[in-house]
């Protein structure tokens, strides 16, 4: 039970990050490898605001600061690095994204040194509740609840609003969407902004569970969330949620079994390979026929 709730809240974090990957992939048709490092940037923003105070109210302020900073960073990288390459081969864009990821990590290292710095978000003070005999951390429950709320809001936004439907149209067929009078560049920038804002939420939740900031903080959750997005079917928003939760639960279950815990990463990636072999488009991905 405890493991399950922890896994669900970790899965919620992965799902938030995976949403960033999957939305950008669906709309801009590119893998944003630097997405994990946006989380790292958000974590540093939170560190600068909160530090070691452990003040919960300050954490909320920090979250807003992190959102602003991440959105700014995400939009800037899109404008400077990815937009000039629009229309180039996907491989070129992917390699540029890897370059951006490296760049962000090394800049962070220059400013904040490579050592991990502790940060106290006040999550530990929240204590825990006992429910059905299981000892549940309140911070995990909050993370889980907020993740569910954010994902519901996002689904409503994409399905019900004008802008959201414009996003769907761009992901379906960019050329046709621009002929219909949709400003595709604006929509892509907006997608990056939303993805980065989700990353800022993810960085706060991540720090609530693992309260140390370092320049490589984002790379492992980034890769895992990306795995989650691919497992769920990249480009599909519900797929990212399913994949993220699945991965989080598997990770927590594996780590609670001593014999399996060193192999956690191998098991997660192994699952990815098996799922892709059985269903190359992921669990909820749409199949596209390839044409000559």
């Amino acid at each position, binding site marked *: 039970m405890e493991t399950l709730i922890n896994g669900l809240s970790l899965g919620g974090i992965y799902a938030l990050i995976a949403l960033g990957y999957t939305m950008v992939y669906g709309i801009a048709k590119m893998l944003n490898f630097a997405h994990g490092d946006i989380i790292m940037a958000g974590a540093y923003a939170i560190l600068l605001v909160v530090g070691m105070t452990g003040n919960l109210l300050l954490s909320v302020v920090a979250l807003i600061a992190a959102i602003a900073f991440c959105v700014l960073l995400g939009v800037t990288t899109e404008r400077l690095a990815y937009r000039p390459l629009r229309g180039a081969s996907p491989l070129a864009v992917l390699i540029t994204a890897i370059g951006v990821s490296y760049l962000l990590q090394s800049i962070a290292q220059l400013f904040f040194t*490579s050592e991990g710095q502790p940060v106290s978000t006040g999550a530990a003070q929240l204590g825990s509740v006992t429910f059905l005999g299981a000892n549940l951390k309140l911070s995990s429950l909050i993370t889980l609840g907020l993740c569910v709320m954010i994902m519901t809001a996002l689904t409503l936004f994409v399905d019900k609003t004008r802008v959201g439907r414009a996003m769907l149209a761009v992901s379906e067929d960019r050329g046709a969407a621009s002929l219909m009078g949709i400003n595709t560049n604006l929509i892509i920038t907006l997608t990056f902004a939303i993805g980065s804002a989700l990353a800022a939420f993810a960085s706060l939740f991540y720090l609530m569970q693992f309260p140390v900031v370092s320049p490589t903080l984002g790379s492992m959750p980034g890769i895992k969330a990306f795995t989650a997005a691919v497992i769920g079917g990249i480009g599909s928003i519900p797929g990212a949620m399913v994949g993220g939760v699945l991965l989080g639960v598997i990770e927590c279950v594996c780590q609670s079994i001593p014999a399996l815990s060193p192999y956690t990463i191998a098991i997660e990636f192994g699952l990815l390979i098996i799922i892709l072999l059985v269903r190359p488009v992921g669990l909820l991905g749409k199949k596209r026929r390839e044409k000559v």
Partner: protein
Amino acid sequence: MKKNIRLKHYINYLILGLALVLFIALDLLGVLKRSDANLLAQVGYSVILAVSLNLVVGFLGELSLGHAGFMCVGAYVGGLVYIMLEPQLNKLGAILVALPIGGIAAALFGLLIGLPALRLKGDYLAIVTLAFGEIVRTVIRNQDIFGGTRGLESVRFGNRLYILAFLLAILTVFISQNLRRSKHGRAIQAIRDNEIAARAMGVNVTYYKLVVFAVAAFFAGVAGVLYAGSTSVIRSDNFSFNYSINILVMVVLGGMGSITGSIISAAALTYITVKLTISLSGDMAAIEPMVYALILILAVMWNNAPFLRPVREKLGAKLEALRQRILHCGEVPEDNSPEIAAWDKVPTKIPMDAILSTDFTVDHSFDADRRGKEEEQ
């Protein structure tokens, strides 16, 4: 013209061979320092890695982010053989046995990763290769036979390892160049350019994809064995995803598909990296990945950005003119490119002048007529 083509084919061997001869000469004169010899061995296996990754990325057109994983397999399997044989045989004998074994072990894994490559492509395949590299590393790290998390203690081969590394680099270039120029190479390039069309032409896509992955993995494994000989401890942390990216940077910077480019950029980047790591201490070492990242982004932009195309084409034309002038000893050769004829010079029976000079006047009478009728109603 015939001489020209030959130079193009042998330039890679010339670069590597001359470099090797030069360094051996320096070594015999006693000028070559121990640290430099070690650096040269690193350059040697970096060249092998870059050229073999180029087979997958530039030649087959699939992105592989797990090349360090193959190297890891080679380093541990080959390294184990090398360490076990070293007391019985001498160092050279041991490593000569270890090299093919490490290579074949990696090639088997290459076949394994080639299997998903048959069903997946592009971004999906990239993430699978990444996942594969991490799986290999995690599993090996937790095996006691491979020294666990502490790493496997190895035996340094000594200063002369670079000779072996360069010879193997030449072998790698020889095999990939000849593979590329053969019938098989053309089939592989056909798969890269259009897989469906290639299949329709009767190319055995399954077979060739597996071959490319296996060959590339084999050489990565060989590079891994060389690494095992150049270090005192084989550590699995060295084969992380970041190392795969570094190899990819070498390939991209040298130009995807260009062997000469891979050789030059692998050598240059390895040299710069090692020198920067030595001279920068502490957190200033972050400048090194930063330089890497900037080089990577700028190189990709320069080669691919649509808005730079006019600049690229102009520069390309100038370079071509310069090359022609150098080849023809200052004489500007006569322009033998087919002249694009102006449309009025093209012999044709269609009276183009008459058509183009016709002034189309629109007959408005019908419109006026209809408008009149509408008003009546």
